């Protein structure tokens, strides 16, 4: 198969020959028979890798399943997603992670790499069998209690130490629990006016600072999930300047949206479509996060795709579920906030959305440059397209996007998983 007329990382138009799931040849004017796909001058990116996806299966199949979530991922240009552990039952045993991994494998829309829970039942009391999950068919390398913080300092220390035996990483949901009891939104000007209990930036920053120090102390790898504040960026910059093995991610929504939307938006005040954890922060935080993503202080864009059924969002604010879906809009939001603003070029996007997340997750089959010999995981993207976000077009089972009606740039034209198209002409294959 030859994919004609694509611009690798935004470069000059070339053709890409694919065979046996691998890129065979890259060059201008390739000849030879077989199937041909017209790239139409689209940008070719290495298949995107998400470090932070909630697929909800097992347990909340009304919100998302492995099948619908991976279809959604393919539509967004992803060829691999890390499925978070906060399912029901929790992914804290080899059995559950293997089930999720197998479901992903069977559906075939993108690779599903399960994340294992750090503690049993995400309860923060006792380590889950991390080694058994690492040794299972799912080959778990990322461990996270995401949704909850591993707040006990001793337990966090032990987890960081223990996963060194199999080159694992602990992905921390940084949220000091006592400082965020009943927290509803960013603590600041807007929360004070709206009378909603605040989620202070310090509750994130204090845990990140502690965990960076712990990781340095035990010489382990730490990954920080969904960094949301300017203060967190400062701490990460400092930890990296020490040479410590600390990585971090930011979500597309924290790169674009602010807490002012809770008070004033086209969908009305207190609309829980903007309720997410960590919460939307201020304009100054957004600016700091963009800058940190540009300079590499933040390594990765991760979606924190968090599907919820309609009824869990159509309620009063405090009763609503936290989270937003994001797989199908991530690349567009990154273009809007980082590329079109001149902060990041397409090679930078490839690094933040494919190479780095694959490296952190130790995914050997993903995150490689588009060149002969690499697995044929590719995303073709048309950055000139512009259209309003229409949730009814999503492949996800859920509709809780904060971007409804917002005009965003770009469109995923095609996605290839090991040479096999999962999306063509913007539609699932």
């Amino acid at each position, binding site marked *: 198969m030859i994919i004609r007329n694509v611009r690798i990382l935004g470069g000059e138009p070339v053709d890409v020959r694919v065979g046996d799931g691998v890129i065979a040849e890259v060059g201008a004017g390739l000849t030879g028979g077989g199937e041909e796909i017209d790239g139409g001058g689209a940008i070719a990116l290495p298949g995107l890798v998400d470090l932070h996806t909630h697929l909800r299966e097992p347990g909340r199949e009304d919100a998302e399943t492995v099948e619908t979530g991976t279809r959604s991922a393919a539509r967004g240009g992803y060829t691999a997603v890390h499925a978070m552990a906060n399912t029901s039952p929790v992914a804290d045993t080899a059995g559950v992670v293997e089930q999720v991994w197998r479901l992903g494998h069977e559906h075939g829309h993108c690779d599903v790499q399960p994340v294992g829970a750090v503690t049993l039942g995400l309860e923060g009391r006792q380590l889950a069998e991390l080694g058994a999950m690492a040794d299972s068919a799912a080959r778990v390398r990322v461990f996270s209690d995401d949704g909850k913080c591993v707040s006990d300092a001793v337990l966090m220390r032990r987890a960081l130490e223990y996963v060194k035996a199999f080159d694992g990483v602990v992905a921390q949901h940084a949220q000091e629990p006592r400082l965020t009891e009943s927290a*509803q939104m960013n*603590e*600041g*000007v807007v*929360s*004070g*006016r*709206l*009378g*909603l*209990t*605040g989620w*202070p930036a310090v509750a994130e920053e204090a845990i990140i600072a502690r965990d960076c120090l712990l990781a340095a102390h035990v010489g382990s790898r730490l990954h920080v999930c969904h960094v949301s504040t300017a203060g967190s960026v400062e701490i990460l910059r400092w930890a990296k300047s020490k040479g410590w093995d600390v990585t971090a991610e930011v979500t597309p929504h924290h790169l674009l949206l602010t807490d002012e939307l809770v008070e004033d938006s086209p969908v*009305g*005040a*207190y*609309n829980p479509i903007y309720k997410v954890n960590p919460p939307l922060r201020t304009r100054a935080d957004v600016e700091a996060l963009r800058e940190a993503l540009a300079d590499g202080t933040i390594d990765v864009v991760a979606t924190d795709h968090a599907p919820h059924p309609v*009824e869990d969002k*159509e*309620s*009063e*604010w*405090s*009763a609503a579920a936290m989270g937003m879906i994001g797989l199908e809009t991530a690349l567009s939001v990154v273009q809007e906030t980082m590329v079109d603003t001149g902060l990041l070029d397409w090679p930078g996007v490839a690094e933040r959305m494919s190479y780095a997340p694959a490296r952190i997750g130790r995914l050997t089959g993903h995150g490689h440059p588009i060149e002969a010999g690499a697995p044929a995981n590719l995303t073709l993207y048309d950055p000139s397209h512009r259209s309003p976000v229409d949730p009814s077009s999503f492949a996800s089972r859920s509709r809780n996007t904060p971007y409804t009606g917002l005009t965003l740039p770009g469109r995923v034209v095609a996605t290839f998983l090991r040479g096999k198209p999962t999306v063509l002409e913007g539609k699932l294959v």
Partner: protein
Amino acid sequence: MNRDLISAGDLTRDDALLILDTAEELARVSERSIKKLPTLRGRTVVNLFFEDSTRTRISFEAAAKRLSADVINFSAKGSSVSKGESLKDTALTLEAMGADAVVIRHAASGAPHRLATWVHGSVVNAGDGTHEHPTQALLDAFSMRRRLGGLDGRKIAIVGDVLHSRVARSNVLLLHTLGAEVTLVAPPTLLPVAVDIWPCAVSYDLDAVLPKSDAVMMLRVQKERMNASYFPSEREYSRRYGLDRDRFAKMPDDAIVMHPGPMNRGMEIAAEVADSPRSTIVEQVANGVTIRMAVLYLLLGGDTA
């Protein structure tokens, strides 16, 4: 006027004055032996109370009945709400019944905003979580205007748990709109983080503020705050922020004392102060009915209905 009354901040100065002036006219009706007006005959007002608040509910009920509206009391206890019905489904039910106005009290901040997106009738916020209580602010302004003769340039101290107080939020917004100068007085733990940008002054020192105040509004300290480290003990709170006899004596001779009720006598306010002739606390209750009549009258279009 907007269709709904959800935040005191939605009222322009003209709106607020119209409500206060309308209430003055209606107060004269309340002084007659037959208190009822035919104005809202055939209109339905639903009192949708998800929190127990007998005093606010009966105040709205009396107001609606004096205007001849049909009143339906919908209390969360013993209703479908306690069986897990969502706010949206409750709203759609009320909508189907043809509610012209829904008066809502809810423990969640912002619940009236959500309700307003699902019903066509007017929504009146009767207290939402720790957000706002606009009719309380209106009745407070009405009470102050009657006692002080006007609000422009008047100095009002609001004392106590501002962080969790819907009364304080609504009063700051409304009193600012009406030209009064508000000072919030509280321990730093009971003030919101960004209170410095609110349209008011802030002080931690009640003794410094009292001698300059035309009115002092004491806020209730909720029981659940007392053991949550907002202050060391009830006694210490009372010593530093309670309005006792000694502090009362430092106030100007014509300054008034207010409290939205229910009071913790001996905690934030001494019994002698609450019962003094300069206390408006009982008047506030009476004025509550009057101001809610004015609000319903104006929102439901009065005699043009």
